[in-house]
């Protein structure tokens, strides 16, 4: 009985993320004398967690197939720039479609090169990372795009990140919807089964009739779509966007997914864990802000967290294996 409970707990990929989150929240709250747990701080942490989580969900799907998408930070910027840029000059509805469509297209481009030419995804998406970051800097020319008061009052703008409901930003609701939908797709629909199969053993999946190229195309497309969506939500709630928007966020998205229990070699995925991973990173970030520590140190801390998480993943896997041998 004791062993089977332990087995169940260890079998869940998000276990280490849950444990680390619980310890961390306690630590952050105590060491800031309760400030960290204040409503104002939680409000901001929940919003920035939601934005990162939506991007990280897409990354988690890509990682589940054994690939990686490092272009998401740039796609995030494109989504934000198109939404605000086109929204203030043309029309918000058109801007929404173009922003999401743009993200989807970049994802499809990444996916097509990976799926049909078998170019390593790190290389392909590194290319699109530079390409679209260059475009982001190019179109903003060192300035930023801001949303006018008129635009900010529009319904689409509010639904897409502008509004707070009961103090909680709509991005949080969007993240929960995305979590629910993607969790169902991954674990209760054929597509999820095939995504995990491709990550586990692509040749075996292929031999069973799985269209491996299509699976790869789909996860990259979703990753692009979600990154653009996250960028839009973030830009709408802040109200402006510049060329550096979302820079280095791809690393946080990868870290969130890995912290959450997604295996970088593929075949193992947890979206709930990814949400917790995103929360962990953003919680630590806000802690540094409260303590008045320079944000540059966050990068260092990010590195430490990722290394520790990958180590704990190894330890957990070994423990799990030993338990299953019984």
């Amino acid at each position, binding site marked *: 009985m004791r062993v089977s409970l332990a087995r169940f707990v260890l079998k869940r990929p998000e276990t280490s993320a849950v444990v680390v989150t619980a310890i961390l929240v306690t630590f952050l709250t105590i060491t800031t004398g309760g400030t960290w747990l204040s409503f104002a701080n939680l409000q901001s942490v929940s919003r920035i967690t939601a934005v990162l989580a939506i991007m990280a969900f897409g990354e988690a799907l890509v990682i589940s197939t054994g690939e990686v998408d490092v272009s998401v930070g740039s796609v995030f910027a494109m989504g934000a720039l198109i939404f605000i840029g086109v929204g203030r000059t043309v029309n918000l509805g058109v801007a929404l479609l173009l922003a999401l469509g743009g993200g989807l297209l970049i994802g499809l481009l990444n996916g097509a090169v990976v799926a049909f030419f078998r170019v390593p995804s790190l290389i392909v998406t590194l290319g699109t990372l530079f390409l679209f970051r260059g475009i982001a800097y190019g179109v903003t020319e060192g300035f930023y795009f801001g949303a006018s008061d008129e635009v900010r009052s529009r319904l689409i703008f509010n639904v897409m990140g502008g509004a707070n409901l009961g103090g909680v930003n709509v991005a949080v609701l969007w993240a929960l919807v995305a979590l629910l939908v993607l969790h169902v797709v991954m674990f209760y629909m054929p597509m999820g089964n095939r995504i995990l199969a491709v990550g586990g053993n692509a040749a075996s999946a292929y031999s*069973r009739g799985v269209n491996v190229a299509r699976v790869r195309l789909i996860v990259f497309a979703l990753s692009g779509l979600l990154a653009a969506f996250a960028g839009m939500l973030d830009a709408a709630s802040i109200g402006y966007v510049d060329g550096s928007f979302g820079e280095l966020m791809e690393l946080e998205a990868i870290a969130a997914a890995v912290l959450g229990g997604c295996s970088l070699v593929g075949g193992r995925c947890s979206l709930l864990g990814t949400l917790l991973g995103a929360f962990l990173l953003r919680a630590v970030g806000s802690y540094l802000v409260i303590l008045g520590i320079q944000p540059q140190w966050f990068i260092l801390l990010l590195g430490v967290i990722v290394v520790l998480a990958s180590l704990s993943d190894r330890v957990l896997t070994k423990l799990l294996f030993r338990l299953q041998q019984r």
Partner: protein
Amino acid sequence: METERAPLISLRNVNLWYGTVQALRDVSVDFYQGELVGLVGDNGAGKTSLVNIISGIVAPTSGEVYLDGQRITSFHPKLAIDLGVETTQQSVGLCDNLSIARNYFLGREPVRRIAGIPFIDLGKMRKEGRKAITAFGLRESVDVDGEVALLSGGERQAFKIARAVYFRSRILIMDEPTNNLSVRERERVNDLAVQLKDQSLLVIYITHDIFQIHRIADRFIILENGAKVADVPRNLMSAEDLERIIREGVGNDAGSPRSG
């Protein structure tokens, strides 16, 4: 040619190159419905390569493939499966990270549609997966929700065969199906191959166990260095002769290396 029946599968002058390695050389062969064909030959003779073409894993570099007299022009496992080819592969077919139930139905998951959205029928996957486990002499303790990685070599093999038998339709290809199996399970697989043939399936059976296959097959195809060197009905060749040919070769390859 040799019979008035039309072949189910027909390969014509098939060549297959893996880069600079020629795995199949000008192979022409017919397979008929309701026969059990033993495909034999030395390691690296091209047996797996030949069946990989039929099950859509690889496309021939040149030559023609016909199914029901229809020329096959695109090669993809999904297409082969849809046309009725079920295969137990030699080295692929299982995803270690997925549960037994999920592996069983991988690629053709049973679904229940709610508002048109396909949800995996987990209940059915578990039930059929469990049936396969018990029917195929896997340990009672094997859990359908457990990862395939936890199965032993023989259990993995038994699982692959059970799955292929479950999904069988017209053509069953078994690539060294008795590897890792106990004597009892081996008997079982051989009996099954005969039964399926009697149900008028075409069974293509690859093995290195010449005496076993000689007992059950109707016909043997011998490959040597990628070329077909013999295609004989059982009554025209003894098991000893069969073995001798495989061991000594027919010596018509003029010493040409496989790679070049």
